[in-house]
């Protein structure tokens, strides 16, 4: 068989047929190419890990995990970013998992056979595959507008910026309004908008309100109105940033005839974990919800796969016993699919914890020295902190960034190990 085509070649009957030897050589050559390329992929991974290890190892210590960010590379720490990521991912998980599982159950178990509901189904499915392709930075912009600024419904919040103002009514019924300059047990120093710095004794105060003010409106004696945020003050005047209208205006204090403000809506008391203000600003809540948008398609797709893997016999059995659809789903199918659902949710969270672009857009780089205290606190997240370190001009901070990467990769490894363990439980469960 092998000699025949070779003979044909020599005679030149079929010039298109290559000899067996050359075909085998090509096959071998391609196999070698494949090996080389796949080895390359493994080498890339190895180089990546080694490069990060070498750079980051000496900065990795217990202090690195327990210090806050610093201007000095030796003292720079990851604590704020670590806890920020925990808070943001908690918000993301609490919102994305129920929504994603609900959507997947609706698509898989509540499939209508015909009519407009069927069209809705098909449209939702198409839509989810498109949502998965939207770049995360675009989600960031949507999150900024929808969550951080809430479409400007509650005032033109400039991301997380607001003025912390104190409104005092004194016992002689005069009113004092301004940012606090300091407080102690007996008095408050306040930068009153009309009279400037002023010490108010606590015993003179009749009532006190604290407000986060989004915009101030000053009516001057000549009737003009200035609306904006305070950016600074001098004894004689207030410096007001008017946003889009054209920059900074100085308002002389003695010319202020009237004052009005738009405050944030506050729910709960400040300092408690569930304290929330509207709009959310660039805090934990807005960032967590934005990440929810990013990972929602992943949760939906993985949950659908887990639901599809549940044998049809379970559904038929439940239906035959007269279970309603929800009884079937909640007592048979979801428990059977739970390991798969959880694996998908964990992998979605590992995507969320590594996402930097949406958080960058919603919150910007925040240099903070404390961990979040509530749902709308400012925060920093691990990938964002790594980005800002890697972006610094000093070479030492590259090492600090590498140490941050090591911590982030360790957290991701824990997530992946958890997913693998759960997946193996699943396989055992089905074979038993």
């Amino acid at each position, binding site marked *: 068989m092998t000699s025949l085509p070779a003979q044909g070649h020599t005679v030149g009957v079929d010039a298109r047929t290559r000899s067996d030897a050359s*075909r*085998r050589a090509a*096959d071998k050559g*391609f*196999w070698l190419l*494949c090996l080389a*390329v*796949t080895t*390359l*992929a493994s080498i890339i*991974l190895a180089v*990546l890990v080694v490069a*990060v290890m070498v750079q980051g190892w000496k900065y990795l210590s217990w202090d690195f995990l327990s210090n806050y960010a610093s201007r000095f590379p030796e003292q720079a720490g990851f604590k704020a970013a670590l806890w920020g990521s925990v808070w943001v991912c908690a918000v993301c998980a609490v919102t994305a998992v129920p*929504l994603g599982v*609900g*959507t997947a159950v*609706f698509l898989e178990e*509540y499939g209508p056979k015909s009519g407009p509901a069927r069209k*809705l*189904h098909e449209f939702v499915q*198409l*839509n989810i*595959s*498109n949502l998965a*392709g*939207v*770049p*995360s*930075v*675009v989600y*960031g*912009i*949507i999150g900024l507008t*929808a969550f951080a*600024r809430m479409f400007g419904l509650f005032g033109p*919040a400039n*991301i997380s910026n607001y003025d912390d103002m104190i409104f005092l009514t004194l016992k002689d019924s005069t009113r004092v309004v301004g940012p606090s300059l300091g407080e102690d047990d007996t008095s408050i120093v306040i930068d009153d908008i009309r009279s400037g710095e002023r010490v108010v004794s606590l015993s003179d105060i009749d009532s006190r309100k604290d407000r986060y003010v989004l915009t101030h409106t000053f009516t001057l004696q000549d009737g003009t109105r200035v609306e904006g945020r305070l950016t600074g003050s001098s004894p004689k005047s207030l410096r007001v940033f008017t*946003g*889009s209208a054209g920059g900074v205006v100085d308002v002389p204090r003695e010319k202020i005839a009237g004052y009005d403000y738009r405050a944030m809506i506050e729910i709960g008391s400040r300092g408690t974990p569930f304290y929330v203000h509207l709009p959310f600003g660039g805090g934990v809540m807005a960032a967590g919800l934005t990440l929810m948008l990013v990972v*929602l398609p992943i949760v*939906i797709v993985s949950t659908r796969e887990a639901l599809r893997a549940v044998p049809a016999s379970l559904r038929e059995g439940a239906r035959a016993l007269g279970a*309603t659809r929800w009884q079937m789903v909640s007592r048979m199918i979801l428990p059977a699919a739970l390991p798969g659902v959880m694996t998908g949710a964990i*992998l979605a969270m590992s995507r969320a914890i*590594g996402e*930097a*672009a949406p958080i*960058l*857009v919603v919150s*910007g780089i925040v240099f903070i020295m404390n961990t979040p205290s509530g749902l709308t606190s400012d925060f920093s997240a691990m990938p964002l902190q*790594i*980005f800002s370190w*890697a*972006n610094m001009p000093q070479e030492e901070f*590259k090492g600090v*960034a*590498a140490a941050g990467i090591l911590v*982030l*990769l360790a957290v*991701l490894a824990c997530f*992946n190990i958890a997913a693998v363990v759960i997946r193996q439980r699943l396989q055992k469960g089905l074979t038993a």
Partner: protein
Amino acid sequence: MTTLPTAQHATAAPTGRARSRRWRAAREGVINTSLALCAVFSLLITVAIVYVLATEAFRFFQRPEVTFTEFATGATWQPLLGSEKKFGVWPLVAGTFLVSGIAALVALPIGLITAIYLSEYAGPRVRAILKPILELLAGIPTVVYGYFALVAITPGLKSLGNFDTYNAMSAGIAVGIMCLPIVCSLSEDALRAVPRSLREGAYAVGGTRLDVSLRVVVPAALSGIIAAFLLAFARAVGETMIVALAAGSLPNLTADPRQQVQTMTGYMAQIFLGDAPAGGVEYLSCYAVAALLFLFTFGFTVAGHFVMKRFREVYQ
């Protein structure tokens, strides 16, 4: 059938079973509705994306210093220079496609060859090693790839030639590595979906593995492979952190990969890092750029899914 129990209800005291049945029906209704609302929420996200991008981009074009013609045709993007602001988007688009093009040149051949190897050549033991490595690569956050570009790829390139500290090549290679697992796993899915009978037929007439792979399996899976390419390209176009770290921040209409460029995503990152005032024209320009980026990635994703769907119709 439905009237009977209610008639009984009206006359006699409801039995326990009837009450529980009614309660059950109500509960089913509530659950149905809330599940449907979950599904509708995903539609709302799309609506919100289109609404926000469209209205804010419209506000951008209404600004006196901006015209749509300049945006669509201008070759200078200079939003931050006080008096002489220029909003011609082409440098950003060119930067985006330069970086994504380099990424495609890295990811497509390597991804496809790895996919062919995994699907047609590799035994189960090799697969057991390679698949987790690819999954690991897929799970690495993009900011880590950006760091990798900055500390490993860029110094390597600089030792080879006259590269800038920030350059399109370094970012492109890192984006390519990031896209590699996507190309590979989607292409492999397409290759594995080709029916065995085609392979067996090709082997029966004396084909080597290379003949079977390149002349039978790859052509049969071509639309799936093209879909994989398109989806990976959409990811490359939308990638932000790698280009923000490694590509530079100078909008530059060039095809020279040694120079620094700014991509659409890189521009957005720069503006939001600098805390541009809300309502300012630079800030609004981000929405116009995001709208354009959304149109690009949406186009690639839809094209990818369209091609993939046609492929599925052929073999399933």
